């Protein structure tokens, strides 16, 4: 028996994958396809759902950044040191200082955090337009997004610059879609989790929080953009205990490239002051908007800074959200049958 025959027999008992396993892989692909196809919530009924607000952009970034973001502990990633630069954002520093003035929520395991928000996102299907939604999400205090519930409705769409709004964009406008299951799967790596149980265990020192934001990342421009993106994941439909929230604001303030935008309008039309960071690769500025008096988090928006890369005129707001309320509930509503 020569070496090639032996090699052919080695581990030959590993079978072709069963249908359930193939289906799991397929679901992740179909979810990505659905997002790419426009991802408007009312369409693509048969594709599995993962509708986490803070995650949509994050997942896309994770795929772009490829190996870096999805790397698992135990892989041969070299140890990268992330010394935290001096914080340079006045807005985030104020937000940290004001954190103690807001009433604190104390959700318990078994309860739900309830987020009500408005969103606007671009749809890049056959036709382009900006779809808008009102949504209310119940997220379990302990456990991943598959235990969550979503209710919502589509609001009238806005045009994408240079594109007429297609008739299909009006389908389902004004009709309640839920309550329904928020997600069929949630396979985020641990350090991207945003459930209360997990974020309560995050560090309360800014330097350690900074390191958390850079988990598995390097020190390049793409890494800084991804770290900023992870801040979004902890601000959007997520609630951190005060100590962690303060640490998050101070750590975010130290991410290189943070600037201040004096007047920024969220998806509900509220004007605030924003901590912003330009992502030169995507050609847009990502802003976290705070109330100019109380420094409570209002929402976020992305503004085009490079027309060629973003395929829209400079100054266009392509994505925005507004967090209308955060509360605690003992139960989530029963979901409608699929």
């Amino acid at each position, binding site marked *: 028996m020569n070496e090639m025959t032996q*090699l052919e027999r080695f*581990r030959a008992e*590993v079978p072709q994958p069963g249908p359930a396993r193939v289906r799991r892989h397929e679901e992740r*692909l179909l979810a*990505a*396809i659905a997002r790419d196809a426009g991802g408007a919530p009312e369409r693509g009924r048969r594709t599995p759902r993962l509708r986490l607000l803070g995650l949509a952009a994050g997942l896309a970034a994770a*795929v772009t950044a490829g190996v870096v973001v999805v790397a698992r502990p135990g*892989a041969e990633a070299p140890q990268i040191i992330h010394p935290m630069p001096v914080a340079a954002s006045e807005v985030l520093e104020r937000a940290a200082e004001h954190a103690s003035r807001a009433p604190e929520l104390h959700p318990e395991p078994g309860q739900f955090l309830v987020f009500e928000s408005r969103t606007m996102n671009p749809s890049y299907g056959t036709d382009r337009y900006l779809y808008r939604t009102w949504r209310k999400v119940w997220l379990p205090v302990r456990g991943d997004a598959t235990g969550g519930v979503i209710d919502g409705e589509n609001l009238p769409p806005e045009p994408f610059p240079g594109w007429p709004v297609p008739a299909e964009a009006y389908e389902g406008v004004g009709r309640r879609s839920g309550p329904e299951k928020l997600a069929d799967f949630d*396979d985020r790596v641990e350090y991207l989790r945003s459930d209360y149980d997990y974020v309560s265990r995050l560090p309360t020192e800014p330097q350690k929080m900074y390191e958390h934001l850079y988990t598995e990342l390097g020190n390049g421009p793409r890494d800084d953009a991804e770290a900023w993106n992870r801040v979004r994941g902890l601000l959007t439909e997520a609630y951190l205990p005060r100590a962690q929230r303060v640490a998050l604001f101070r750590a975010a303030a130290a991410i290189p490239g943070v600037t201040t935008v004096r007047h920024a309008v969220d998806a509900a039309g509220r004007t605030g002051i924003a901590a912003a960071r330009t992502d030169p690769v995507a050609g847009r500025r990502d802003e976290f908007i705070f109330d100019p008096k109380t420094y409570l988090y209002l929402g976020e928006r992305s503004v085009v800074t490079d027309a060629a890369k973003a395929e829209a005129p400079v100054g266009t707001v392509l994505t925005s959200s507004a967090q209308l309320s955060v509360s605690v509930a003992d139960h989530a509503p029963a979901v409608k049958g699929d």
Partner: protein
Amino acid sequence: MSEESRAEADDASCIERSRRDPEVFAEVFHRHASDITRYVTRRLGEDAADDVVAETFLAAFRQRHGYDLSHPSARPWLYGIATNLMRRHVRTEVRQLRLVERTGVDPVTASFTDRSDERLSAEASRRRLAGALASLPKGHRDALLLFTWAGLSYAEISEALGVRLGTVQSRINRARNRLREELGGINPLATVSEETVCE
């Protein structure tokens, strides 16, 4: 054109259509997912393979605009992406092979095998083979296993790994010699000449 190659000739057109209609990309998955899953599982075990396979098709989907449509079969492209993603699991792969070498226990096949005594006769050479695989430079192991386990031709391996055809030939030759040396104690230098006629 055979039935199989006719089906594969459609990969490029599927990918081209998926640029306008992303859902068509699911067809590329249906054609190749099973084979790629088995290949990656055979190298890394089920857990790590699940990650790599899912990421492979996500990455392929994202990169579909960059696919060279003059290549009718997407197989080399997909195996190339999977090979890149497996890089971060090199330590796992080598550790498992070393475990087979030392103890005969193979974590990769443990969940698929119910009669562990079946291969006892081949036990010694199986352990030496695992040790030899573990000691190969990664690029050589990639080329060798794409050839024997994935069934790629030298030209396809060259496309998948982005290296010249001559490099593929020399990597596979050297890897085979190494294996032969470990398994049979045959002087590798004496057998080099026959290797160039593999294609």
